């Protein structure tokens, strides 16, 4: 039974899923005005994995908020093709009073489209997928940081979104846990054919995961460079080509930071 996948997707693979047209986002007014994003344009194809990298102040989180519909652009248009959008934060943001299972059930209960039994089946399947089958009854404070972020990933997947937005989701984890989660995320992305927009300030992580890496400038955020990563998957972080690409992107970021002087 694939209850969650009966709705037909309105964008075929390869079509444009996410479009950002001439978008600006300005906070504050008058002398305190800060432009987080300035005339930024970006198209992301359905099923594509795009990494946004930028130093702090590049407006990458703002861009995700716009895509998630949490904020409205000051100018321009964003579209996710009418598809459902899930957003994962750097913090797991789990509900402390719910078990791991309860947290994964939450978005399905909020939507109320599935019966309680079907939602339970789906939640257990997702927890198994992220390797937490035996931790369903634990509460967040009884789980390690990596496990919590896995629960958050399962919860994001439970929204059965076409577009998964990730805001530095593994930034607070240790390197080993992060490597493991990269592998899992890549696997899930391939299986589900989702569109992923992944924000990070880590060039290596971007090259590890992205089909395309978009480098943003700082204050205001614009597209400084786009790098297509055509290395075969699964990628090894220690391969020569990856290191070279990551270095190249890191250099580009450092130039940005030096230019803006912060």
């Amino acid at each position, binding site marked *: 039974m694939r209850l969650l996948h009966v709705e037909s997707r309105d964008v075929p693979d390869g079509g444009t899923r996410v479009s950002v047209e001439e978008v600006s986002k300005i906070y504050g007014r008058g002398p305190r005005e800060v432009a987080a994003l300035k005339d930024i344009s970006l198209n992301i194809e359905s099923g594509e994995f795009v990494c946004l990298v930028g130093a702090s102040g590049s407006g990458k989180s703002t861009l995700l908020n716009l895509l998630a519909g*949490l904020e409205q652009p000051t100018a321009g248009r964003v579209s996710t093709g009418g598809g459902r959008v899930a*957003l994962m*934060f750097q913090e797991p943001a789990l*509900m402390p*009073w719910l078990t791991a299972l309860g947290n994964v059930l939450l978005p399905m209960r*909020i939507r109320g489209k599935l019966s309680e039994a079907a939602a339970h089946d789906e939640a257990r399947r997702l927890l198994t997928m992220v390797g937490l089958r035996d931790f369903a009854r634990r509460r967040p404070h*009884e789980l390690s940081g990596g496990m919590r972020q896995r629960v958050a990933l399962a919860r994001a997947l439970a929204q059965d979104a076409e577009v998964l937005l990730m805001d530095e989701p593994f930034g607070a984890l240790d390197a080993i846990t992060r490597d493991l989660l990269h592998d899992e995320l890549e696997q899930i992305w391939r299986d589900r054919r989702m569109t992923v927009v992944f924000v990070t300030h880590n060039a290596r992580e971007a090259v590890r995961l992205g089909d395309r890496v978009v480098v943003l400038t700082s204050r205001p955020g614009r597209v400084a460079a786009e790098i297509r990563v055509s290395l075969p998957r699964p990628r090894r972080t220690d391969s020569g080509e990856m290191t070279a690409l990551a270095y190249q992107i890191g250099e580009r970021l450092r130039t940005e930071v030096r230019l803006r002087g912060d």
Partner: protein
Amino acid sequence: MATEATPMSAGVTGARAGELVRRAWTKTWPPLGAAALLIGGWQLVVWSGWRPDYLLPGPMAVFARLGQDLRDPDLYSALLTTGTRAAVGFSLALVLGLVLGLAVSRSATVRAAVGSLITGLQSMPSIAWFPLAILLFGLTEAAITFVVVLGAAPAIANGLITGIDHIPPLLLRYGRVAGARNATLYFRIVLPAALPSFIGGLKQGWAFAWRSLMAGELLVIIAQRPSLGARLQFAREFSDSEGLLAVMIVILLIGILVDRLFGIAEGRIRHRWGLEQQS
């Protein structure tokens, strides 16, 4: 150690049982000790002859009287009246506190209008309401309920408001991303997240309700309706110091008991919410 010689499993069980007894003892001896000190001090004052025995009886006499009263059905009808008043008043305060708390936390206008008024009401001694309540309702149940509700509702509302104000913003952002709005957002995220603080407000509201109720029962005595407050008042009128102190002990014990019940609920919830470490 004695347990060292016993086989492994028995030693472990024995040690665990010993640990439990020790933990129970660490928890019980301080209040017991304090009570013993208090009663001892009371006995010393009586022995000093500061006031004659018929005005200030000793603890033995009072506890004997308490034992006698506990076999008297009149005490239980008094407890029933007082308990019913407490339950009705507290329930109404709960409803009013919930409505007020939700209104203030949802609307900036309501908050600006009555936010500080609620905090002000909370610090106003509720006994100050009684003259007005008696003018408005006469010497009736309604007068008592009115003051109990006014005493407890602000604390309950404030508990809820504080709870909602301190929800981590990220949880609310998640709620919006997951598409939770209005009632769904409140039942799935806002109210559960605010629960620990709300229970704290309930506990405080109970303390206010109980105080207001005792004040009310002293001032508003309704004929043919025995209550704890009425028993206090009659004991004073008949200069029955033993009876008076016995009722006071009952009032104190009820206060402690209910406070402990709220304390246990609060502790469980805080533990479940991961707000404190296991001991």
